[in-house]
């Protein structure tokens, strides 16, 4: 039990595509359902008339949530402690930027799923089990192809 608590990530994110595709990164399986319904409700209340890439922010108990709409995708980044709303805004900025680059424009459901594998790799480079690992779009693009960064 204790170990589970320690491993609770300080930062995680999810992408929602409609209701049938939802990707969690860094959330223990038993928490997923709870988060999913909480965030879907949050999105339903607020994202209806949102402009593309307009950022929303909320706090729930001790965590912060920064979320946005990108084409057909709803994106939520959740964090606590040092990952407060400002660090999360930084993270979501990298994620939206990378997804746009991969899909060439704000993604539709189709383009997002077509590039699903590449998007998974990109997210893997950005956050690793609750710790922000990379924040530079160009570098991430290279890392996904196993190319070293251009500058050291």
């Amino acid at each position, binding site marked *: 039990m204790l170990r589970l608590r320690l491993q609770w990530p300080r930062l995680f994110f999810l992408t929602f595509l409609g209701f049938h595709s939802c990707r969690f990164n860094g959330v223990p399986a038993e928490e997923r359902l709870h988060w999913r319904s909480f965030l879907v409700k949050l999105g339903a209340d607020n994202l209806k008339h949102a402009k593309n890439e307009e950022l929303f922010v909320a706090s729930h108990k001790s965590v912060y949530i920064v979320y946005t709409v990108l084409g057909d995708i709803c994106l939520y980044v959740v964090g606590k402690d*040092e990952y407060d709303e400002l660090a999360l805004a930084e993270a979501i900025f990298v994620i939206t930027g990378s997804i746009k680059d991969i899909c060439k424009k704000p993604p539709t459901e189709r383009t997002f799923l077509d590039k699903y594998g590449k998007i998974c790799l990109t997210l893997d480079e950005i956050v690793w089990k609750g710790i922000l690992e990379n924040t530079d779009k160009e570098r991430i693009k290279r890392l996904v192809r196993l190319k070293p960064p251009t500058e050291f």
Partner: protein
Amino acid sequence: MAQPLVKKDDDRDDEAEYSPFMGIEKGAVLQEARVFNDPQLDPRRCSQVITKLLYLLNQGETFTKVEATEVFFAVTKLFQSKDVGLRRMLYLMIKELSPSADEVIIVTSSLMKDMNSKTDMYRANAIRVLCRITDGVLLTQIERYLKQAIVDKNPVVASAALVSGIHLLQTNPEVVKRWSNEVQEAVQSRAALVQFHALALLHQIRQNDRLAVSKLVTSLTRGTVRSPLAQCLLIRYTSQVIRESASNSQGGDRPFYDFLEGCLRHKAEMVIFEAARAITELSGVTSRELTPAITVLQLFLSSSKPVLRFAAVRTLNKVAMTHPMAVTNCNIDMESLISDQNRSIATLAITTLLKTGNESSVDRLMKQITNFMSDIADEFKIVVVEAIRSLCLKFPLKYRSLMNFLSNILREEGGFEYKKAIVDSIVILIRDIPDAKENGLLHLCEFIEDCEFTYLSTQILHFLGIEGPKTSDPSKYIRYIYNRVHLENATVRAAAVSTLAKFGAMVDALKPRIFVLLRRCLFDSDDEVRDRATLYLNTLGGDGEVVETDKGVKEFLFGALDIPLVNLETSLRNYEASEDAFDINSVPKEVKSQPLAEKKAPGKKQPTGLGAPPAAPPTTVDAYERLLSSIPELASLGKPFKSSAPTELTEAETEYAVNVVKHIYDRHVVFQYNCTNTIPEQQLEEVSVVVDSSDAEEFGFVLSKPLRSLPYDSPGQTFVVFEKPEGVPAVGKFSNTLKFIVKEVDPNTGEADEDGVDDEYQLEELEVVSADYMQKVGISNFRNAWESLDADLERVDEYGLGPRESLAEAVNAVISLLGMQPCEGTEAVPSNSRSHTCLLSGVFIGNTRVLARLQFGLTGPKEVAMKLAVRSDDIAVSDAIHEIVASG
């Protein structure tokens, strides 16, 4: 479930057909995974299959043990391919599969090879995968490579190793701690993210070593930190150092304040906020220190970026709790945020305004909130309701408009939690503001007329039963209560019957009419309702005439059950049905203290509303009273005048946790030591506290009541009683030593050894101060109360308080010295003001009401003078208050 985006309902079907995952099915994908075993690997196809597997996993699909093993073995074959894209997929796939220990061995050698590869990126990824799946044994094998990787010149490799370190520290701390030299080197890295990760890891490694953290902070605040993220961490660690050093260096300049203040001009907003927050959270922050941070935050309130507005208003909201006056400058900006698109921001703005507003702005604010309430979610509404409750307690004269607001929103749509919050607030206001009582009770009566929540209805009925009979015209509530008997479900009907009976018992004039109503309930369709009606009709007596109800009967029917419910429950569970009836006197009355876990997490003390009276444990005061009266030696002392909040006498996480509660009586003081034994292998016996009162001359030792045994994690109390002169607020210091016999406990049987060893344990000092003799009792209208006291019993004098950090600090010092309740929000001192008036009220030992009017003024640079006027029912008490100030 709501669907966030339904823009494209029309062409959804067409779109879905093209989805690469249309009709995806686990069995089929596992079949496809056999391509991993082909001698001629097709990297493209393999990548596609992996993508499908990832998709399944991310959808929450689970593999059985057999399936997972099969997929894992197939995946490991892919190491044979030299295709770069496939290799990257492979790394991710292994991480997602999180193989079991016996499977890990299969990939270890392949990953070790990659870890020593010439290609940097293979190294970085292999490290990440290995650390994700490794166990302790494997870790010692690869430790050498990890240490090298931390100082690798490629930042990606270094970051991979450092982040691995952060994760591994949770499971294998002793290994990771050996890397601190390398991590220290990485902190100096020129790569921004490496520095960020290294700093985080180094701090975690050293977090228990205050000196090392302090050194780290000192060196980095002088050097350069490249990434804003790392700078934020540094600010956090700096405030930690400031907090810990605060106790050592009283007065003088605060260390590192200049660093924090400098960060307010950093180019990254993230850093500015972190610094502003750090400053606002400094303990005992002065208004001079606070000003630059508030100014910066105020600018962000009108930023175009929602995240910045949110961060600013969230921080100011926190500041408003402790320094409401410092935030008032931002009120205009904050008011414009009420209409912010982002409801979280709007709610925070509202609640901040509620905290900083003054009495005159309440009405205007309430108007704005009324419009706002209809379009926010319940959870935000609850926050607003709680803020309004505290506002009303702060400005009791405004209760009318605030109470009306609460009753209006009570009538609107809302879920249970929200309604409960409103009802709780009304109940608290009724309790604390006498003028609001009748009005509030009627609002509650109206609410139960169409309340859909059984729980709330029964709670309100219970509350009406307690408060209603004490009002000037109890009969007007009867109609509301009796209506429930007609219209509600059985639970509510039973509650209504009890409430009616209470009115009958308390108000003799109503008794005949109540009897008529109760008789009608005898034909109810529910057993419980009938039983209750019968019981009340038979016990209240008088056969429905106007007679006084027997006191014993009242006590029997409505008196508090002086047995903790938990104990009763345990006894009932243990009771085996037999010839002997259950004897309620056999239930132990001793209140078992809270379990260890709860005590360690002291929650915010919030006034409890309805939930408290019937179900929840009695208030602490009641609990103390019951505990004290259950001990014969202490019961004879009478009722305590005041019980203090517990003071810790040990540091956190020591072997024995002891805190003390001071119970003040007219002629005695009782120290109640709450002891907890935190060592499972020990049992303590004959536990007592030896008190040295040589620094407390007016006190004479009377008796000590030791605790027979103190097993692990089951708190117990020992008491020491002192005599003191009657009515005199005697003060003094007491030093304490815990004495006990320690016995070892066999971990297998849980039994203690026969032989024990005498031991003692030094506790911290405790002090009885003047404030212990004063009860904080608020009043709603200070002026009326002041004028109702005889002006001849007033004592006025002037005092020089010497150099003080600020006016606010001086005001707070006097308030805590006297231990009285500030009235009408006068404890808050506007920043930059040169004079201030503070109104206090309380009850002094001997049950004498005391009011004090304090006028503060700045006489020179930082010199504060005070004029103190005290009125009370007894001139001697007025004098005593002056003596306290004069000697304080």
